[in-house]
């Protein structure tokens, strides 16, 4: 610990929290450490659109004063975080990654940011996002796309690109992202960190720019599952200002974490990557041999921890992915139709091309998609009646080069994350290995509002493996060494 505290940015959120509680680490020192790293490394990573050094340090000093006087707000007190720049922050520019809001100063804070701030978290800055959480990586916008800390020539995935890159590179302790088709779990996979898309309705979306009302989820990006549990404790809960918010009791997430998974039944959906990806989306979607081996090894690790694994067969992946796409594109186009008609040039290239397809989907297409959504939800609920959790692939190969990501890549590729947006189930991305020096991941999903069960399995897996302890080379590039 003594060595780690010489560079507190290298601690996990939970480690930093324990050090602060023990009086061994000051929130000011922790905030300064992150700000120094941002100044040294973010010129290459572009993970922040805006940093807030003065207000962050002021908040850190206030936290330190409160803590010294014995007024602790809990585990997040004095912890520096970042927000994807679709979370509104009162009086702080919030762009949604778009020219439409390039100078936008909200008059309100996102409800989730209010919860984190009330829990003592410190805002380091606003993080790069694909335009309106869909259009990226786009070099035609005034905001440079974030890079993957494991190899800056590669894509960090999106749309929560900056948040994932910043967490992975230790430029904040944790971050908030959003996930409509995989925008938290995709970046978590490519950046080698933990990403949670909670149950639909679990975290308030109030004050977060929408992409698709019925698919949007707010969630967390962290370096460990325990860190995720600590963030969730502050974030979860009913918000009457979010029409989709669910009034469901919130358990103690950290208390749910256990080292063993005895008596747990896990359904493994292998056919998504073993059969459906190529059948539905073409041969370019074949998983890499390294990925298949990593996935199998991860499943074996869950068995070693005491879980019983059974193979499940659901509808083909293309049914989940394309139903999600029809709903997303239809809802997003409706949201932006006026700008598409009157000033289409204001959008970046990718946002325009992807959401523009919504102009050609009919009302009947949309209704058929939400009818199919219900059928799929019923099917998955029946499958979950026989198991406690689900496991399925995430991206089935390493991150591509950022210059190889095309305008329609999101339609060409099999989406392994969309099934859990469509069904609204909680889903966690956890690292399971590496290929060519770039991270790989799988997903653990659960029943509605069973984030605790999902986190329990993710934590046990994480503790039994070493993947989360590996760090990108850029994370070791401490400012003092440069």
């Amino acid at each position, binding site marked *: 610990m003594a060595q780690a505290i010489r560079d507190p940015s290298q601690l996990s959120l939970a480690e930093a929290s324990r050090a602060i509680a023990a009086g061994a680490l000051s929130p000011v020192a922790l905030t300064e450490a992150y700000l120094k790293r941002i100044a040294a490394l973010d010129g290459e990573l572009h993970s922040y659109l805006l940093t807030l050094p003065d207000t962050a340090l002021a908040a850190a000093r206030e936290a330190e004063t409160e803590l010294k006087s014995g007024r602790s707000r809990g585990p997040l007190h004095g912890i520096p975080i970042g927000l994807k720049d679709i979370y509104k922050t009162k009086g702080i520019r919030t762009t949604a990654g778009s020219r439409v809001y390039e100078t936008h100063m909200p008059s309100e804070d996102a409800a989730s940011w209010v919860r984190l701030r009330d829990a003592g978290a410190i805002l380091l800055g606003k993080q790069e996002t694909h335009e309106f959480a869909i259009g990226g990586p786009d070099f035609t916008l005034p905001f440079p796309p974030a890079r993957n800390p494991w190899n800056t020539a590669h894509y960090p995935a999106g749309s929560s690109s900056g948040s994932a890159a910043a967490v992975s590179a230790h430029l904040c302790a944790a971050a908030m992202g959003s996930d409509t088709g995989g925008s938290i779990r995709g970046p978590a996979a490519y950046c080698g960190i933990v990403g949670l898309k909670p149950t639909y309705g679990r975290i308030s979306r109030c004050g977060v720019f929408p992409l698709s009302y*019925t698919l949007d989820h707010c969630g967390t990006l962290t370096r460990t599952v325990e860190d995720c549990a600590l963030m969730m404790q502050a974030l979860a809960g009913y918000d*009457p200002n979010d*029409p*989709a918010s669910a009034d469901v009791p919130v358990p103690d997430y950290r208390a749910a974490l256990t080292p063993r998974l005895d008596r747990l039944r896990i359904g493994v959906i292998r056919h998504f990557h073993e059969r459906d990806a190529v059948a539905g989306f*073409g041969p370019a979607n074949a998983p890499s041999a390294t990925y298949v081996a990593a996935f199998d090894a991860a499943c074996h690790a869950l068995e070693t921890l005491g879980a019983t694994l059974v193979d499940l067969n659901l509808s083909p992946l*293309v*049914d989940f992915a*394309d*139903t999600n*796409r*029809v709903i997303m594109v239809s809802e997003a186009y409706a949201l932006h139709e006026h700008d*598409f*008609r009157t*000033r*289409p*040039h204001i959008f970046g*290239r990718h946002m*325009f*091309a*992807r959401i*523009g*397809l919504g*102009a*050609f*989907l009919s009302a*009947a*297409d949309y*209704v*058929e*998609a*939400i*009818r*199919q*959504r*219900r*059928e799929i*939800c019923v099917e998955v609920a029946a499958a979950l009646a026989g198991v406690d959790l689900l496991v399925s692939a995430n991206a089935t190969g390493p991150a591509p080069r950022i210059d190889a990501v095309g*305008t*329609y890549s999101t*339609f060409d590729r099999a989406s392994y994350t969309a099934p859990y947006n469509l069904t609204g189930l909680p889903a966690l991305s956890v690292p399971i290995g590496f290929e060519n020096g770039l991270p790989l991941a799988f997903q653990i999903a659960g029943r509605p509002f069973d984030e605790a069960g999902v986190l329990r399995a993710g934590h046990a897996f994480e503790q039994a493996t070493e993947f989360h302890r590996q760090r990108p080379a850029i994370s070791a590039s401490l400012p003092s060494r440069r």
Partner: protein
Amino acid sequence: MADPVSPEDFARLLADAGLDPSHDPERFEELRQGTRFLARLKQTVRRPRDRAAEPAHIFVHPRG
């Protein structure tokens, strides 16, 4: 993979949607290229189903 719609059909689609390609012809041509995905998307969601098959609902009565 299907082909994109023809330029003539695309012009009709744009007119129906109230979109003006003269704003940025290059972008609209890229959008035309994306129409190759529409057939698959529509085919995936348009399946024979019982007339009573309801959509997924998220309707909630607002609290007063």
